[in-house]
Every structure is written in structure tokens, then in C-alpha cells.
């Protein structure tokens, strides 16, 4: 998966994951607060935040595995900094990453249009919800409530991770630091044309 990756891309992806690991941790208390107010559905409103790095890394680097690996590393960083969720969080990160990765894979890692990024955010929502359904025992909740949770998470994944992630990555490309990465190169071609 990582064989044709340049080492530079791996470290940059890791750096992005570290930054977002911190962001994810910062949003955990926000999520917990919302859960205290609205119940488990509180998390779903902002769940897209936790998919951001896979969208951003995949959009910038455009290689197979970027979405999956970056999300996994971000989860690992959360554990390393001392998230109280423990090693189980790494599994949760992998599950989220697989959702986005599957969408990029279905495009053969060639198409990074806005609608694909939206779909990738929703892909993470689908896998993470399936995982949560099993691990957090949503089966015990009323069906209507579970459906509402799922719909909210899909929207959050598409809007926060898809639209938001694209905005952040495009902003970064404008600064010129991505000149040697796929996104920066694409931008250069567009400017030249």
C-alpha cells in the first residue's frame, strides 16, 4: 500500500495527522458536552470533524491508502497524547478511514472532485456508524432515534469533512507549501492554463 509512497509524503501525512490528532482531542469535550445535552445523538452533529484528516490527506497526496493511514495515525496520536479512549480508538480510526478509502478506491484513486470528497465523508460516516452501532449498543435504542443519528452523521460527514476538508486543503495549496504534492501540482497546472 505504501510501497510507491515517497518518504516525504509519509512524514507530511504524519504531521497532518498529528495536528488533527490534537484537533480531535480538543473536540472530544465538545462532543461529550453535546452528548450530555442531547444524548448519543450529540456526537453525530459534529462527527464530521473526526473524518477531516482522511479527506485532507487523500486530497493532497492522492495515493492509495492516504485516507486510511492518516486517520489511523491521527487516532494513534490521540492515544499517544493520552486520550482516555485507549487503544480501542485506533480501531475506531481505522474503521473511519476505511469508509473514506473505499470511496476513493471506487474512483481508482484518480478522481478528487468535490462530490467525491463529499461521498468520502459520508463513507466514513457509514463505517463509523456501523462500528458504533455494534460497540456502543445502539441496538438497544429506539429505531427512529437510531435513524436520526445516522442521517445527522451522514450530513455532518459530508459537510464538515467533505466541504470543510476541501476548503482547508485548498487554503493550504494557496500558500505554496504543497508545491511538490499532487494537489499543489494540479493547482499549478490550472494557474498555467
Amino acid at each position, binding site marked *: 500500500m*505504501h510501497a510507491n*509512497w*515517497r*518518504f*516525504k509524503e*509519509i*512524514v*507530511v*501525512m*504524519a*504531521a*497532518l*495527522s*498529528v*495536528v488533527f490528532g*490534537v484537533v480531535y482531542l480538543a473536540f*472530544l*469535550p465538545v462532543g*461529550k458536552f453535546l*452528548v*450530555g445535552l*442531547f*444524548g*448519543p445523538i*450529540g456526537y453525530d452533529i459534529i462527527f464530521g470533524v473526526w473524518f477531516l484528516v482522511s479527506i485532507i490527506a487523500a486530497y493532497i497526496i492522492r495515493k492509495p491508502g492516504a485516507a486510511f*493511514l492518516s486517520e489511523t*495515525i491521527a487516532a*494513534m*496520536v490521540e*492515544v*499517544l*497524547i*493520552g*486520550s*482516555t*479512549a*485507549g*487503544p*480501542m480508538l*485506533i*480501531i475506531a480510526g481505522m474503521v473511519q478511514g476505511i469508509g473514506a478509502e473505499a470511496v476513493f478506491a471506487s474512483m481508482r484513486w484518480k478522481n478528487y472532485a468535490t462530490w467525491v470528497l463529499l461521498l468520502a465523508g459520508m463513507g466514513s460516516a457509514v463505517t463509523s456508524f456501523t462500528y458504533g452501532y*455494534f*460497540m*456502543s*449498543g445502539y*441496538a*438497544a*435504542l*429506539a*429505531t427512529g*432515534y437510531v435513524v436520526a443519528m445516522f442521517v445527522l452523521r451522514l450530513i455532518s460527514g459530508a459537510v464538515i469533512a467533505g466541504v470543510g476538508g476541501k476548503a*482547508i486543503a485548498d*487554503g*493550504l495549496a494557496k*500558500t505554496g*507549501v*504543497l508545491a*511538490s504534492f499532487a494537489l499543489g501540482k494540479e493547482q499549478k497546472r490550472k494557474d498555467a492554463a
Partner: protein
Amino acid sequence: MYLQRLNPSIKACTVVLLIILLAFIFDPVTPMLMIFFTMFITLAFGKVRWKTYFLFFIPFSIFAFGMLWTTLIFQKPPTNAADTITVLWWSYPRESLLTALALSTRVLAVGSLSLLFIFTTNTIDFILSLIQQCKVPPKIAYGVLAGYRFLPMMRDEMKLVHAAHRIRGVNEAHSFWGKWKQYSRFAIPLLASAIRKAERTAMAMESKGFTGDRQRTYYKSFSVVLQDIGFLLLMVAAFAIAAYLSFLLGYFKWGAS
């Protein structure tokens, strides 16, 4: 025997395995017993301070409480609604109350298992052990370690960006919205500097001969010994005993009905 001496990968596997097992349990007694056992093990063999331990436990308790009341309210209607329990002047169907308690004690049990890992594991050791035991490619693992080194620099970098903004006349924000806007202005410069640093680090590592090859030597090597397997078996046995005790008391429930 200290928990710190155990192989980090095996410890992580044990914790993950137990959390998966707990996901099948829908009665409150099994997770409750697991909480007590895990807490005992952590405090007795983990060289962990009581105060810090319980401080870290607070967020789980809040989360568990949220889980408790929402499960009580948003649950599927119970099959036997006439069978009620009265707690503090309110009466709940017995079945709903037990499921709600089961889900919230599960949160706490997962919490105690996670704390066992967090408090007794060294970060770098965990990653090195992941390369050596779990066959994570060194190219990725060392990339992560390099990225991880940026973490302490982030705070300085943030101060720098902050100062740079101020010197260009961006005023200090005081309202909640203002603060939010201020932090979002930090996002791009912070990420940009992280990317620049990462690029430079990668080049430096490669120029010094890092290839990411699996045939390499390690400063610290880890292996799996008998006591690691012992720990795994002990924890699984504790789970089995907890489930059996719960069965004897007539509470045991496997899977949501």
C-alpha cells in the same frame, strides 16, 4: 510484577480483545465486576497515583451518565412493561433500567481498561513494539515518530503565529465568536509550517541513510515472554468469571434482545 514491564503490543491486544468481548454483554453485573477488577490491577500493579487515576475517570463518568439517561428515555419499549423498579420516586420498567445500566457501566469498563493501558505504557516503546511484534512497516512507524516529535513544537508555533498576527494589527479577541475566528485564522499558517517542517525532516532522515527497510537494527528490542501471555489469559479469565458470577445472580444477558 509491574504492568509497565509487559509487552506493549500484547497489552494493547488484551485491552482491545476485552473491549470487544464487553460489546456483547447487555447486563450491568459483568461490566461492573470488570471495572472493579481492572481498577484493582491498575492501582496495585501499575504504580499509578490514585488522585490522577480518578481525575482521568471523571470524563467517563459524565459520558456514562449521559448514556444512562438517554438510554432510559430513547429505548425500545420493553417486552414486560408491568415489571417496574422504583428509584427516587420514579418507577422504570425493570428491563429498561437494566439495559441502561448495562450500557453505562460498559462505558466505565471500557474506560478502566483504557486507563490501564494509558497509564502503564510508554509511547515510543509502543510504536517500537508495533514494528517488532505487529509487523508495522518501519517506514510508516518512523514517519509517525517523526511527526509525533512536532507535537511539543506546536505550542511554540502557535505563539509565533499569534505574535505575527498581532504585529500586523490583528487585535486580541474577547468574545466567544471572536476567539473561534481567531483560532480558525491560525489553522492555515500552523498547518503550512507543520508541512514545511515535515518535508525538511524527511529529507534529513533520508540523507542520513534511512530507507525504511525491514532489515534494520533497533536500539530497544521487544519480545513476547511467558508473563505477557499470562496477563492476556488472566484478563480473559477474569472476564469469564465476571460473566459466570453474573449468570449465577441471574442477570447475564448476551446480545441485545
